[in-house]
């Protein structure tokens, strides 16, 4: 197979993107936040994130998020290969804007919860979870 000038350039760009990617792990989380909030400022308080301080097994870490009156809560794991965890959208019949689930964490990191409140503003909470055994295979 012959490489054309275009192929070579494409390959070089791809390789460059791959090398840069690991350093963008946090940037990916920031991008996800920006997409959710539309760049709006986030207040502290108004959202509660309950997570264990130490998780022995990163494969199932129990977390709970709650934000009274929120329309949606997004959860991010900033140290995972993909930061997104889940977005909870609450409907009119949700009694309290709260939910718990179990998530995977690749290692010790900050878990972030961002709530979109009823008045359109955003609130943020984060918790550091120490993980003894990571939960992303490997």
């Amino acid at each position: 197979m012959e490489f054309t000038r275009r192929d070579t350039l494409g390959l070089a760009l791809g390789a460059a993107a791959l090398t840069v990617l690991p350093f963008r792990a946090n940037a990916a989380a920031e991008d996800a936040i920006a997409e959710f909030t539309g760049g709006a400022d986030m207040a502290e308080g108004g959202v509660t994130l309950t997570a264990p301080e130490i998780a022995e097994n990163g494969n199932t870490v129990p977390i709970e998020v709650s934000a009274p009156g929120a329309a949606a809560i997004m959860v991010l794991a900033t140290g995972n290969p993909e930061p997104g965890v889940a977005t909870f959208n609450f409907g009119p019949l949700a009694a309290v804007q709260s939910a718990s689930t179990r998530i995977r964490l690749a290692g010790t990191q900050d878990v972030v919860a961002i709530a979109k409140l009823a008045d359109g503003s955003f609130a943020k909470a984060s918790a550091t979870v120490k993980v003894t055994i990571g939960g992303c295979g490997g």
Partner: protein
Amino acid sequence: MASGVKPRVKVPKTAAAGEAITIKTLISHKMESGQRKDKEGNIIPRSIINRFTCAFNGETVIDVTMEPAISTNPYFQFDATVPEAGEFVFTWYDDDGSVYDESKSISIA
């Protein structure tokens, strides 16, 4: 994967009108993250449930968008208001297009 997926839902059988009840849901699913590798070093393709919804008589209670960071056998617990007797419908959407659902009716005590 569409084999061996079994939803399990815990909803009280009766409630007072307007009462808030706690609902627990669990569905057996391996939630393959797309990050793991097999013995030969090939990446195992992602296969997860990407959305979960719960509705009561057609009104949404919760709608969750799920990413690969949700654990195997996804579990959710949340609270719902029961304005009248009716039926909760729980729906899970798989990456492969499968849809799993479960319904539970509740009466007013």
